[in-house]
């Protein structure tokens, strides 16, 4: 069943002078439980596409529908709330809250969702255990390696029980061992929890493990491979 439906998505930068088409009429659908990689050279529109699907940026034309909700119909406040409850994000630069510990970083998103303290505790500990960080609960991000920080980001994204997770170059800053470990964790979550993952990546290791690969070129879908 399709949870994301993108129709004729176009994003034009510098509209008034020389228009640059970051996305040019992209139409795609994503189903529940997918483990999809979006690949392509730099500047092909991967990140722009993820930003549109994640409701972080507005398209110049076209539509993004998530479980039947057209993101364009939501006001800014509603869109933020929609992201909080439906979309998980993993960023290339980890983007954890530096003043919070591992546990608090994961807990924070649950607090934003209004989950009571008792329930938060029950949810966080197994999650952090599953990403192998149960011994780093009270460490702050600057006390963790890059791989560990990205695993905290995965746990944070999963904690909010999203419909899908968008990961923008999640392994780009990691060494190969950390990248493999992170991919294994995400694959395990995808298989066990049926969480949909959509990546943008240059990393061949990610591409190898992805079950669907969409290739972007010049803001358009240039190819698609399902394994």
């Amino acid at each position, binding site marked *: 069943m399709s949870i994301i439906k993108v129709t004729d998505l176009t994003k034009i930068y510098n509209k008034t002078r020389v228009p640059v088409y970051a996305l040019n009429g992209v139409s795609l659908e994503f189903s529940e439980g997918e483990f999809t990689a979006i690949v392509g050279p730099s500047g092909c529109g991967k990140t722009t596409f993820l930003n549109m699907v994640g409701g972080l940026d507005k398209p110049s034309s076209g539509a993004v529908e998530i479980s039947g909700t057209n993101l364009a119909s939501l006001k800014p406040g509603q869109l933020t709330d929609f992201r909080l409850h439906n979309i998980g994000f993993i960023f290339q630069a980890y983007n954890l809250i*530096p003043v919070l510990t591992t546990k608090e970083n994961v807990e924070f998103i649950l607090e934003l969702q209004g989950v009571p303290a008792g329930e938060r505790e029950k949810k966080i500990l197994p999650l952090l255990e599953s990403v192998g960080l149960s011994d780093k609960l009270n460490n702050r991000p600057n006390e963790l390696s890059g791989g560990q920080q990205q695993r905290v980001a995965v746990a944070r994204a999963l904690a909010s029980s999203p419909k899908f997770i968008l990961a923008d170059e999640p392994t780009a800053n990691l060494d190969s061992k950390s990248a493999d470990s992170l991919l294994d964790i995400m694959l395990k979550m995808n298989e066990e929890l049926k969480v949909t993952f959509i990546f943008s990546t240059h990393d061949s290791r990610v591409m190898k493990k992805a079950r669907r690969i969409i290739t972007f070129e010049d803001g358009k879908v240039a190819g698609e491979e399902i394994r």
Partner: protein
Amino acid sequence: MLNNISWRNIWRNKTRSIVLTASVAIGLFGGIFSFAFYNGMAEQTIDNSISTEISNIQIHNPKFADNQEAVYGISEPEKVIAGIRSVNGVKGTASRLLINAMAASANSSSGILVKGVDPDEELIISNIKEKITEGSYFNTGKRYPAVISSKLAEKLKIGVNKKIILTMQNPQGVISGAAFRVAGIFKTDNTNFDEAVMFVLKEDLAEATGFDPAYVNEIAVRLDDPDDTKAVVTELGSKFSSDVSAGKIIIRGWYEINPFLEMVSGMTVQMSVILIIIILCALMFGIVNTMLMSVLERVREIGMLMAIGMNGRKIFVMIMLETIYLSLTGGAAGMLLSIIAISVTGYTGIDLSFLAEGLNSYGYSSYIFPAISPFYFLMTSVFVIITAVLSSVLPARRALKLNPAEAIRQN
């Protein structure tokens, strides 16, 4: 958790936060200590004036209150005094005979208000005995003793045991004279009072001028707690309502007798509030600047918070809390510094004797004991919070204008 994040965020750049909190602390310390200084000065002036000169409450014949002519006395003073003493909170009363006179020595003369007093009653009412610097408080054993100020003694070029001639009007309006002998010399912090007043025994003054020994034209009332003055004035007003409405007596608190004192007190508070507001306004620019820097350094982080679902209201609150914590930390340090400084100087006093002449001419003491009420700290804390909230608006608005997609890409 928003509280935790905000509190920890302000210590991410310790040097910057310490510099800002120090500037808030020093600014507030300056404002609070100046207020304590001027407040102490005003309170001492009022206290001195009440203790030495006017008491808490005075009762006169309304005509005497208008033009200070001795012939306008209080009818049935014993009844009035008995009524006053039955009121709760009244420490004591003193009945006085006041007459304007010309005081003369062999060398000089000066216009003066002669206060005919009962020394025992005055001991409860006034601290003039404590202000004696030479001689004694009426205890000479000699006839017609007088207590004059050092200023008057200097003016008339006389000293203890020297004669002073008073020329006054008797009840019939005829000029009469009497010789008094200086028993003691006093000095207060108010040069104007010292120059204008001398004390003699009431019975001597009555005898010298031909007034009835029981004749009284002023009743001074001293209270246990000066803060009760307005309440006791109201109570006495209702107790003697028939005499008041018949125009027989007028009951006035110190603030009505000497409105300047009331003004000094009120102005000190107002000036201090204005000073604190000016200081906080100046500090506001520093706080806004620091918070703007803090927001601009965290563009990517704020973008991430927006992306994961932290709404604008929470981001606004987070930045506002950071500003409040930063300001309150400085505020608390400033208040602590002020409490220490005020406690120490309130105990030791600040010696301004090099300015004594000028200060005394306005009735101010030259030894200042800074004093402050806890309410002022509460008020300052509220002002600090208001300043912080206002200071947070611009940085918070700046944060809310961020586009999460662009913010996340920033380095």
